[in-house]
């Protein structure tokens, strides 16, 4: 069932199953202010952030993961506070930005992150196989199409089997088959107790996931 809901600040984080908790996060510059955002994501939940371009979806995700410093508010991932100095743990993320060294192969790029996570080469190969990039694993990433890079990013996000996935426009440049595969992956992920937050304009994709939708408009969840 798909439902339109609004995250509120009144919810109390009493359960240990809360994977992401964003409270009153706001980023203010001289020109504009975005937020405050409030969001709670529990285990087994799929949350879809919807809203027009520039509404603040990506900003919310970046603040939640501590990639950007917030002016006010706080974020907790698995109950631990997160900010630019305290990165989140056990999170897999896909952002529109690249995050690859283009002269390295897909396998070598993933291997860098595998070392960070303490994951072996077998897992890297398995992830490459999962996203259908085994034939191109030794090609330089600069030769990848945008869709292939997106699949590689999904492989990176799943490398260490994190319970929480944060995906920003994950279906961009994916073909229908790959989008279908991603729906299956996310459904399995939730079934096994994980959670995911997905910012997307792809209504059909969110519908197929039966995600709880949170509207983000004018720089706030509402």
């Amino acid at each position, binding site marked *: 069932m798909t439902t339109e809901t609004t995250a509120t600040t009144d919810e109390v984080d009493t359960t240990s199953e809360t994977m992401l908790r964003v409270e009153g996060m706001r980023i203010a510059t001289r020109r504009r202010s975005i937020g405050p955002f409030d969001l709670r994501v529990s285990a087994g939940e799929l949350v879809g952030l919807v809203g027009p371009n520039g509404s603040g979806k990506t900003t919310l995700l970046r603040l939640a993961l501590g*990639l950007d410093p*917030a002016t006010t508010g706080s974020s907790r991932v698995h109950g631990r506070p997160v900010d630019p100095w305290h990165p989140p743990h056990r999170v897999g993320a896909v952002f529109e930005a690249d995050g690859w060294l283009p002269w390295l192969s897909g396998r070598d790029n993933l291997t860098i992150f595998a*070392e960070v996570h303490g994951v072996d080469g077998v897992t890297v190969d398995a992830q490459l196989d999962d996203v259908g990039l085994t034939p191109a694993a030794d090609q330089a990433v600069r030769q990848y199409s945008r869709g292939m890079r997106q699949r590689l990013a999904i492989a990176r996000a799943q490398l260490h089997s994190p319970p929480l996935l944060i995906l920003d426009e994950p279906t961009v440049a994916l073909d229908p088959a790959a989008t279908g595969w991603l729906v299956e992956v996310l459904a399995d992920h939730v079934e096994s107790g994980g959670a995911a937050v997905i910012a997307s304009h792809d209504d059909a994709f969110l519908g197929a996931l039966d995600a709880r939708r949170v509207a983000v408009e004018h720089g706030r969840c509402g």
Partner: protein
Amino acid sequence: MKPRSLVHAALARPMTRALLLVMAALGCWYAWSPGTSFGLGGVLGGWRHASVHLLDAGLVPVALASALMGSTFRERRVDEAVRMAGVARSTLVSSVVTAGAVLGLIVLAAFGAGCAIGGMVRAMANGGSWWADAGAVGPPVRALVVDLRLALAIALAGGLAALVGWLAGRDDIAAVIVVGFTAPYLEQGAALVVRVPAVVGVLSRSPVGALRAVTLANGGLAAPGFERPASVGLSALVLAVWILLGVMVALPRARSGTVATRSRSTPRRTSIATMGGASVAVVSLVVIVLVASTMTFGALASPAIARGLPWRWQRSWRDAHRAGWASDQVVDRALDDLRAGGDVDAALVNRSQAISPEVADAVRRASRVERQPVSSMRAPDLVEVRLDFDEPITSGVTAFTVYGLRVALVTGPDGHWRVDGVEGPVAVQGHVRGGGS
């Protein structure tokens, strides 16, 4: 994140490989240049002769390679991907700086390989000499101390450049910054900038100027007047301040308005806590060890170690210069005495016949007298002097306008240099009357 991963990734980059090749070619070129003194088959001699250029021409590729490594991880947003993997920013910066230092040493190794090849080729071209020149190579331990000093300086330069690249956040900006910082320290660059006193003052206190000054124990610039031995204490302090500034900018304390400090549930943290104590401690330790080691070899070298250093770094030379009795200063005073029309002060000569009447006469008659700068002296015991004559001196059909003198000096038990003899005057430049030069 392990520095090893960063170094491997950087070494796979075509730009880094190109810089390694450039560095090897530079080493080859300098070792192959005229005037090379050779050691074992030219290999060690080439390195001894050329290694000092690591701190002028060599600095550019070292800084570029390390800075591009630091900048590209932010430009490509790899740093964000790594942080989302749970790596703290302080840990990442620490890894980048360490990897920059290691990459600097790898670039140094490429330069060394080039020196070895160039020195070997020149030794063979000069008649297949395979001798061991003790004078050029020196005792192994002392030579190693010099190499260690250079390696520390290059590692420090690499680490600093990686930090600059990280702060720049873009390859193009990082490249412009590090080339802008290192190019004035090329011998050719220094010859230009030394004409602008205001720029010279800034350059000698810039990070690269301070690094050069600490390592070479001189004024920091590869220009006349700046290559004379100088105390390194102030430069070491300036360098340490630059390093601390870089670390502070790369790892700023959380602003008062950020999530961590404003959260009701999170107590206010001190700056060191927000930076991640262990990682900052490691970064600080590495920086302190690098600076302290360089300072130790530069400022506090024991006499035994000092004798193994190049002559311009040696304490005896610095002491003589401070006392006003270094060879260049003694030659200046002797020339002044002659130009004043009198005899040379007896205290300046080692023996009574050290300066012949012909030499004295030539010096007095010359329109201009120019002593070679210390930077171009190959050894402290030989100083060349150029005599310019506005009125050419004719010999047959040839008119000479420039003559040269070679002043040989020796040191006494008091460490003072004195003139022991003068070769010349030898005609250097002239022309056939009514014809070309």
